[in-house]
C-alpha cells in the first residue's frame, strides 16, 4: 500500500507573506525597498522645494568662477584670481600633505612609545603609560588648539632674530623656515642616479635572499645597501658640479624671506595629530607584541637566534599581522581628524571647499557633497590597501 502524498499546494493566502518562509524574505525586502524609496523621494522632493523657494539651483558652475581669496599654505601655484576648483585642489593637497606627514611621525612615535611601555625599566614604562593615557583621554581638538597656542606664544617672533646669525632652520611663532632646494642643470641626472641605486639595492637584496635560501650563507646587506645608496649619488654630485643647492631663509623686513615656511598652523596640527594618534598606535603596537605567545620567542632563543634576529624573523612577522590592520585604520582616523584644521586656520579641503568657498558662494549642498566625496574616496582607498594587506598575511589554517 502506498500512500499518495498530497501534491496539492495550499491556496495562497495573504498572511503567508509573513508566515511562510518561502515568501517572507522577499516580502520583507520589498517592504524595505518601498519604504526606502519613499523616504529618498520625500527627502529629494523636500530639497527641490526648499531650493526652489530660496531661488537656488543645483549646479557646479561656481567651481569655475574666481575664488577671490588667498591661501597662505600651498603646494601648487594659486592666486586669489584662480578658480574655486583650484582652491579646492590646493586644499585637498594640503590635506594629503598633513595626512602623510602625520602618519609617518605618528607611526614612529607610536612604535617607540609602544615598545617603551613594555620596557623592563619601571620609570620608562610608567612615563609612557602617562603619555598614552593623557593623550588618549583628552579630545584631539583640545590638543590641536593647545599646540597652536604653544607655538604662537612660546616661540620667538621673527623680529627677535634681528642681527642674529640664523642657521638653515629658523623656528619662529609664525612657523618654521627650512632651506629650499634649488634644482640646477644636471639635477635630473642626479635624481636618475639615485633612483637607479635604489633599484640596485632592491635587486641585490632579492639576490641575497635567494642565495641565503639556497646555500644558507648570509650577505652583509646593511653595508652593501648603505654603500650603494650613498657612493654613486655622492660621486655624481661632485662630478656634476653640485647641481642641487639650498637657499637659506633670511630675515627681510618683518618676516623671513626665502626657504620653505612650515606655517604655525601646519606645525600645530602636525604635532598634535602625531602625538594624539601616536598614543593610539603605541597601544596597538604593545598589544601586537604581547599577542605573540611567549613560547615563540623562547623557541627562537632555543634555536640560537640572537635577540634582534629573533625579533626580526620570529616575533615581528607574527606581531605585524595583528598590528597592521588597526594601524591602517588609525591612519584613516588621522586623515579624517585633519579636517579639524579649520579650527586653527590651516587651509585643508575642509577649510577651502567646506569653509571659505561654501561661505562665499552659498552653495552648501554642492560643496558638502564634494567634500564628503573626497573624504570617501580617500578612506575607500585606504581600506582597499588594508584589505590587500590582510589578504596577503592572513593565516591559512588547515
Amino acid at each position, binding site marked *: 500500500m502506498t500512500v499518495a502524498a498530497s501534491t496539492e499546494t495550499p491556496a495562497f493566502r495573504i498572511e503567508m507573506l509573513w508566515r511562510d518562509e518561502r515568501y517572507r524574505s522577499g516580502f*520583507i525586502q520589498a517592504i524595505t525597498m518601498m519604504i*526606502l524609496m519613499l523616504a529618498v523621494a520625500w527627502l529629494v522632493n523636500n530639497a527641490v522645494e526648499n*531650493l526652489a523657494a530660496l531661488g537656488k539651483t543645483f549646479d557646479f558652475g561656481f567651481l569655475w568662477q574666481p575664488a577671490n581669496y588667498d591661501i597662505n599654505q600651498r603646494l601648487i601655484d594659486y592666486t586669489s584670481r584662480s578658480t574655486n576648483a583650484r582652491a579646492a585642489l590646493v586644499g585637498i593637497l594640503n590635506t594629503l600633505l598633513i595626512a602623510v606627514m602625520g602618519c609617518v611621525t605618528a607611526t614612529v612615535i607610536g612604535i617607540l612609545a609602544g615598545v617603551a611601555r613594555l620596557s623592563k*625599566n619601571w620609570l620608562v614604562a610608567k612615563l609612557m603609560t602617562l603619555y598614552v593615557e593623557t593623550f588618549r583621554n583628552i579630545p584631539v581638538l583640545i590638543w590641536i588648539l593647545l599646540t597652536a597656542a604653544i607655538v604662537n606664544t612660546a616661540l620667538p617672533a621673527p623680529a627677535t632674530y634681528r642681527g642674529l646669525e640664523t642657521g638653515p632652520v629658523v623656528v619662529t611663532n609664525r612657523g618654521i623656515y627650512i632651506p629650499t632646494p634649488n634644482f640646477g642643470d644636471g639635477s635630473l641626472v642626479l635624481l636618475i642616479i639615485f633612483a637607479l641605486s635604489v633599484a640596485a639595492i632592491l635587486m641585490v637584496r632579492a639576490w641575497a635572499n635567494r642565495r641565503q635560501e639556497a646555500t644558507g650563507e648570509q650577505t652583509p646587506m646593511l653595508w652593501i645597501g648603505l654603500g650603494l645608496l650613498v657612493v654613486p649619488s655622492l660621486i655624481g654630485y661632485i662630478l656634476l658640479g653640485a647641481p642641487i643647492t639650498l637657499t637659506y631663509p633670511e630675515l627681510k623686513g618683518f618676516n623671513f624671506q626665502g626657504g620653505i615656511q612650515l606655517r604655525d598652523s601646519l606645525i600645530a596640527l602636525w604635532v598634535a595629530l602625531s602625538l594624539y594618534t601616536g598614543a593610539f598606535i603605541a597601544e596597538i603596537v604593545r598589544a601586537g607584541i604581547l599577542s605573540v605567545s611567549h613560547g615563540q620567542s623562547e623557541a627562537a632563543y632555543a634555536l640560537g637566534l640572537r635577540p634582534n634576529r629573533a625579533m626580526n624573523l620570529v616575533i615581528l612577522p607574527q606581531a605585524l599581522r595583528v598590528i597592521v590592520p588597526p594601524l591602517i585604520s588609525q591612519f584613516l582616523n588621522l586623515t579624517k581628524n585633519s579636517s579639524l584644521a579649520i579650527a586653527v586656520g590651516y587651509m585643508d579641503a575642509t577649510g577651502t571647499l567646506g569653509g571659505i568657498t561654501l561661505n562665499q558662494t552659498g552653495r552648501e*549642498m554642492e560643496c558638502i557633497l564634494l567634500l564628503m566625496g573626497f*573624504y570617501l574616496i580617500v*578612506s575607500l582607498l585606504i581600506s582597499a590597501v588594508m584589505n590587500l594587506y590582510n589578504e596577503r598575511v592572513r593565516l591559512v589554517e588547515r
Partner: protein
Amino acid sequence: MSDLHAETVPYVARTRFEPQPPPVASSGVLGWMTQNLFSSISNTIVTVLAIALILYMLPGMLEWAVFHSVWNASSIKECRDIITASFGEGATGACWAVIHERFGQFIYGYYPVSLRWRPDVAFLLLVVAMVPVLFRTMRPLAYAMGGLLAIKLLIALYDVMTGAKVEVLTGPTTVLAVIAGILALVVGGEKQRPYWIWFTLIYPVIAYFLLWGGLVLQPVDSSKFGGFLLTAVIGVTGIAGSLPLGILLALGRRSMLPIVRTVCVIFIEFIRGVPLITLLFVASTLLNYFLPPGTNFNIVLRVLIMVTLFASAYMAEVIRGGLAALPKGQYEAADALGLGYWQSMRLIILPQALKISIPGIVNTFIGLFKDTTLVSIIALQDPLGLMKPILANSTWNGIVWELYIFIAFMFFVCCFAMSRYSMFLEQRLRAADRR
C-alpha cells in the same frame, strides 16, 4: 632496610641551618630598584635620563600651577598684581580665578540661573538611571548619594566659614539624593534590579522635560544650553541612541536579505568614510533643506541626530566584530532549539556578542564623548566654544592655559573613568569563562 639506607645515602645533615634573609639586591626597596631601574648599564642610563627629564619639567610646572597660582581675583590684571606682589617681579603663575568665576558658565552655559536646579536634578536622576545598568545591585548608588551629600556638607561648611549664605543644603537635589540613597539601601538588591531598569527606560522622557521644559515647567530654548551640560546632553544621547541603532545595523549587515544588507553596508561605509565635522556641517547648513518647507527645529536637536547616526555606524562595526567572533556552533544551537530569528538573537547570540565587544563599545563611547568638542566649530557653546567669549572679554584677555587645562582635565576624568569601568566589566564578565 635501615642498613641499606645507610649505604646509599653517604651524608645526612644532622644540623639545621637557620634561614637567612634574602640578598639585599633582590628584596625590599633596594632590590626592587636594582631589578626595575638599574638592572644593566643601558637601563641605568635610561633611568637617569628619565629622572633628569622629570626634574627638568616638574618643578617649573608645579610652581606655575600650584605654588604661584591665584584662586581668587576678579580680573587677569588683579591676578598678575597678586603674583607680582607675593613672588616678586617676573614671577608667573596660574590664574585659576577665571575658572572660579566662570564655573557656573562652564557647567551650564547660558542656562537661566534660577532654573539651574533642573539640569542638576536631571544629572542626579541620570546617575540613578545608570547604576542598575552598570552594576548588579543598587549599592553603588547609595555610596554615590552619600558622597554627594558629604560634598554638599563640605561646601556648606565653607560657606559658613566665609560668611556666605548657605543654600546648597536646601535645594531639590538634596531631597532627591536622600530619597534615592535610602531607596537604594532598602530596595536595592539584585532581585529589585528590574524595577530600577524600568526607571532607566523612562528616564529619557523625564530628562527631556527637565532640560527643555514643557508641561508645568518653564520652557528653555536650547540655544541657552552650553558648557558641560551641552557636552553631557550630546554625549549621553549619542551613547544611549547609538547602541540600539548600532545593534540593528550590525544585524542588518549580517542579514541574509540582500537589499537590507546593501542598505546597511552603504550607510555604515558612508558614515565611517567621512569626518564628523562634515556631518556637523550637514547638521548646521544642510539638514533643513531635506525637511518639509517651513520646519525649523533647533541646531542642538539636529546635532544630536547627526552625532547619534555617526556613532551608530562605528558601533555597528564593533558589534559586527563580536557577532563574527562567536563560534558557528552557537548559531546552530539556537536553530536546533527551534528559536526564531529574534528569539535566538535576543537570548543566545547578542548577549555573548555584546560581551565580547565590550572594550570596543566603550572605546566608541569614549570617542563619541571626546568628539562632542567638535560642535564648538559650528558655533555651539560647549566648553571649548565658551572659551571664545571669555578670551574676548577684556577682564580675562590673555588667559590661555588655565582654560585649556581645566577643560582637558574634565574630559580626562570622564574618559579615564569610562575606560576603567570597561576593564572592571570585562573582569566581571570573564568570571563565566573561568574554571
